[in-house]
């Protein structure tokens, strides 16, 4: 009697083969991988008549360009949530690694701004950073950023896997320490004068579309919109690699196993500690690539990049996509759609001319709704009701 609950075991009883009812169809859509995409498109269509700017090509280009950096960071968070962890340190890694890249690459720096910073004279001075103008310097600087981010992630993972400390605690402390360290390095100043080729990684476009003049504003302006950009290529590449890693490799299977039941995974010979360290490293490396995109589009290394509500955006977008906070459930495609929905939401709230306080309140409410949906979906799948 232990194992058959009040419901008949679904294994042994086939459901009658009837035409799907409306409820069943709704359930199928609700549980589908594309649910959030459908939701986003419906939202878009509903708002289109009220917000004429929404479907304007300039706005679509904005939505896309806002998506890519957030997507890269959220992909890292997806891995962590899937093992039932959480990574609060991503924002601080974004700020810190943006400083690392900028201080190595800056072509020149002003002593007025940076002479009080501990890195002045040591790494950077009037003649710029050590890799300024060096052939292949940009690649080296990116490698250094990834190494720095990866080390932070590995340290998180080691503390969590080997000392069994809760991820919330470990990454909270990392967040505080790393962002304080980044601010200390530059004394809260930003590092500008980055090489043009580096900036191109965050801003450069490959295919742009010209739409002719627009006559709504009083000064006619050229209408060139970037659709295929370097950030897009970088983000899509990261997403494809992450998708393969999570769904088609031994490592991905082990990630899910740990997220579903760490004890059972351990007893089944899954290298739990190694996988946890790797997952937190991936999370931090994704944050680093996000830092690359964010800091190049702002054309500066900023210790305060990724402060404030950034983490809300990252975790919110991931959870809206459908990745479970309880672990064991996550897909990169979900996160792609979640980020799309989240960016679309922010964009539309901006277009409605709401104040930032209202925008944050609405975003918060949507994330709570997503977390509730997660619970509901889990129940639907388990209970079959």
């Amino acid at each position, binding site marked *: *009697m*232990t194992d058959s609950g009040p419901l008949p075991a679904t294994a042994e009883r086939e459901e009658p083969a009837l035409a799907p009812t409306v409820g069943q169809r709704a359930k199928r859509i609700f549980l589908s991988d594309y649910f959030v995409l459908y939701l986003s498109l419906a939202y878009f269509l509903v708002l289109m008549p009220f917000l004429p700017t929404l479907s304007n090509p300039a706005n679509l280009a904005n939505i896309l360009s806002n998506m890519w950096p957030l997507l890269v960071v959220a992909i890292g968070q997806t891995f962590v949530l899937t093992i039932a962890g959480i990574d609060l340190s991503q924002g601080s890694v974004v700020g810190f690694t943006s400083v690392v890249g900028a201080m190595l690459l800056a072509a020149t720096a002003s002593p007025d701004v940076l002479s009080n910073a501990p890195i002045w004279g040591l790494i950077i001075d009037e003649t710029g950073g050590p890799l300024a103008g060096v052939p292949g310097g940009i690649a080296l600087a990116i490698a250094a950023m990834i190494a720095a981010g990866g080390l932070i992630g590995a340290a998180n993972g080691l503390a969590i896997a080997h000392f069994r400390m809760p991820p919330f605690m470990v990454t909270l402390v990392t967040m505080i320490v790393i962002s304080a360290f980044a601010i200390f390095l530059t004394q809260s100043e930003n590092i500008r004068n980055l090489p043009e080729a580096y900036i191109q990684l965050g801003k450069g476009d490959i295919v742009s579309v010209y739409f002719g003049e627009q006559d709504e504003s009083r000064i006619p302006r050229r209408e060139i919109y970037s659709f295929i950009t370097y950030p897009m290529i970088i983000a899509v590449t990261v997403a494809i690699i992450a998708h393969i890693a999570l769904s088609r490799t031994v490592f991905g299977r082990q990630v899910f196993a740990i997220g579903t039941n760490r004890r059972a995974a351990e*007893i089944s010979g899954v290298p739990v500690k190694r996988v946890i360290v790797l997952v937190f490293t991936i999370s931090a490396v994704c944050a680093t690539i996000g830092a690359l995109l964010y800091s190049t589009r702002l054309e500066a290394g900023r210790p305060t990049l990724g402060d404030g509500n950034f983490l809300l955006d990252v975790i919110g977008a991931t959870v809206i996509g459908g990745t479970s906070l309880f672990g064991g459930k996550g897909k990169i495609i979900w996160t792609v759609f979640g980020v799309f929905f989240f960016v679309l939401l922010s964009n539309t709230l901006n277009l409605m001319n709401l104040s930032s306080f209202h925008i944050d309140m609405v975003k918060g409410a949507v994330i709570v709704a997503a977390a509730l949906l997660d619970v509901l979906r889990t129940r639907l799948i388990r209970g079959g009701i």
Partner: protein
Amino acid sequence: MAVLLSFEALRKEYFGVPALRDLTLDIRRGEVVGVIGENGAGKSTLMNMIGGVVAPTSGEMRWLGEPYHPRMPSDATARGVAFIHQELNLFTNLTIAENIFVDDFPARFGMIDRAAMRQRTAELLSQLALEVAPDTSVDSLAPGERQLVEIAKALHRDAELIIFDEPTTSLTPRETAKLFETIERLRADGKTILFISHILGDVKRLSDTVVVLRDGQLVAQEPAAGFDVPDMITAMIGRALGGLYPDRTAAPRDEIAFSAKALSQPGILEDVSFDIRAGEILGLFGLMGSGRSEMARIIFGLDPLEEGALTLKNQPLTGGVRDRIARGVAFVTEDRRAEGLLMDAPIAENLSLVSIEEFGRAPLALLDHARLDHRTEQLKTDMIIKAGDIKTQPARALSGGNQQKVVIGKWLMRHSDLFILDEPTRGVDVGAKFEIYALADRLAAAGSSVLFISSELEELMGMCDRIMVMNRGEVMGMFDRADFSERAILAMAFGKQAAGKEVAA
């Protein structure tokens, strides 16, 4: 005797699928009725209807001739129905008296009348021959004692019908014996008992009448006296089972495959030494707290070992879990839910978990899906796992027996020289039990060594070549198959502690 509870054409459907089909049955007052059936036969559905958890789709229940329609569990309690579940519903942080009075504290001048509570509790406890003070905290009680507290709670509410659902699963043999005495006493007091258990010997011994359910239908209702265990099994599974245990197909070989020498771990093991030959099934019997499961974990590398040496195939066995698995040690845990399965993951992912690394293709360890699917499907067929699409159906949706097959199955995707089976048949119905026994035999016949740990002595006697008995971390003795004797083994298992209070798990 008068009829206490009767069912007339009682039927329950879930989404049009019948779970109970037109059951007509009388339960007479003062009787002990054993209810048996495989998982999914409809026992839970019937109990849930009696308890007011679900309502019947059609048909009628009568209580002493009156229509009986409990709409919620408290309706059933008010009529005099009490459930004693295997997982007890006690507040472990409260005292016995507080638990018994938890929903109707006696009050005097607006204050809880503790004296009255204590007195009434003491009466109830003495009625059940439980010699502890009413103010004892429940968390200091052994599982058997806790169960008696549940029964006291039922008596306090003047329960007429007491339903025991798998009550002996977590009890020691001694506690079980005491529980059975209590049930006898309740019957003598005129209470009606429904006794649900997978352990058919207990059912036969205890019941007046045995009711067998299969596929939601009543297939037999017989006086226990003339209803033998093999007949019960035949009625339950609808066909004759060739005995309770399969015949062993091969004799153990001569070579010693695994040996443990002088294992000691303070507080857990003391100087334990034994060998298992290739092709041998070694039974390990002991009471809870005897160190049997702890030793299994030590051999598998989950827990540390202070002194002693383990050898497998003449090579020392060291390192962590992953090293042991690589050396060919397999471990079927006793805790299926917490440690055995990824409940929410598909069956195929559970089956492939241990050997998943073998399906990665260099250099990026991309999964070879075709080979993986083929192997898991093969295993499903081979192990007769009753499931739909194993790539989508989660392990949670399987019945207990099939879940257990998955737990064992994941170790069969690769070759292992030593199988440690810790309570492999716990909570599993008779049909699946037989299949698990047959599997153990197959493993042994293929030359692996099997360490079979169980608290059901009968199955060890049925399956093992030798039985080792442990008590308080020490090996008390070893029996060859020819010398198996239930009485001798049990006596040895109680060992030195026979006189004192039992050690609770």
